[in-house]
C-alpha cells in the first residue's frame, strides 16, 4: 500500500482571512509573540500497491487541478510506499 500526503497552502501573496482570525484567537487565549498564521489543507490518500509510473503522474497532475487551485494555492506531495 502507498500513502500519499498532499499539503495545500495559499500562496504567500494571497490574503488568508482564516489564518488571521486564528492568529487573533491565539493572542486572545494568551499565546504571546504570534507573528503569523497561515491555514492550509491536508489530504491523506491511501492506494493499493505501489505508486509509480502513469498513476504517479496522474496523481501529481490532479493535485494541481483538483486538490489545489494553482491561481491561489501551492501544493506539496509526499509518497510513503
Amino acid at each position: 500500500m502507498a500513502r500519499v500526503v498532499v499539503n495545500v497552502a495559499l500562496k504567500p501573496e494571497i490574503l488568508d482571512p482564516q489564518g488571521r482570525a486564528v492568529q487573533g484567537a491565539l493572542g486572545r487565549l494568551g499565546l504571546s509573540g504570534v507573528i503569523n498564521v497561515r491555514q492550509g489543507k491536508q489530504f491523506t490518500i491511501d492506494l493499493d500497491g505501489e505508486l509509480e509510473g502513469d498513476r504517479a503522474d496522474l496523481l501529481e497532475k490532479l493535485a494541481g487541478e483538483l486538490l489545489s487551485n494553482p491561481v491561489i494555492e501551492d501544493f506539496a506531495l509526499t509518497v510513503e510506499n
Partner: protein
Amino acid sequence: MSARIGVVTFPGSLDDADAARAIRISGGTAVALWHGDADLHSVDAVVLPGGFSYGDYLRCGAIAKFAPVMSLVIEKAQVGLPVLGICNGFQILCESHLLPGALTRNDHQYFICRDQKLRIESTDTAWTKDFALGQEIVIPLKNGEGGYVASEAVLDELFAENRVIATYQGGNPNGSYRNIAGISNKAGNVVGLMPHPEHAVEALTGPTTDGIPFFTSVLKSLVGAP
C-alpha cells in the same frame, strides 16, 4: 420563438429558479439543464446560478467544473456560447479557467448580504450591452467567498482590455482587488459577476429592477448573431 437560455442546476444550487424567472421576465425561454446530463439541449446561452454547488467542498466551484454538463459548457464557451456565472457560477467559471483569477474568503470573514451599488464599466460584452457605460445600479449581494483575487499583471490586463464589467461602489464589501465585482473573457461572451442580478427583476421581490439588462443584453446579442 424567443432565445433559449439554459440554467444549470448542480447539487446545492440555490438560485436556479430565480435565474429562470429572470430570463422569462426579460423575454427569453428558460431551459433547465442538469449537472449530470452532458447535453445542452440546443440552448443559445447558459447561466450558471448562485448557491453552494457540491456543498462548496474542496473549494467553491472546484467540483462543479468536472460535472458532465460543464465539459460541454466549457467547450462551447471557448467558441462563443454566451455564459453568465453569478456568484457560485462566477467561482465555477474561474475554477474552469474560462475566466482568470479566483474568488477567496471575504477579507472580513463574515458572510455579507445587502443591496449593493455597482458601476457598469464595460458594455462590450454579451451580458452588459443593454446598459449605459458608467451606469450605476443596485442589486443584491450575498457571499462568503466573494473576494476577487488575481496577480497584478492579470488585474492590469483586465482593465487594459476593458474586461472589468462592474465595480463595487460605496465601499468594498468583500476585499475584492481593485473593487472588481465582475469580469469577462477576451471575447466578451463569458461573464462572471459576484452580485445577483436575478434577484432584481421585479419591484415586488427585489430592491430594483436593475438586474434585467443583463438578461435583455444576451437576448439582443443572440438576435444580432449571424
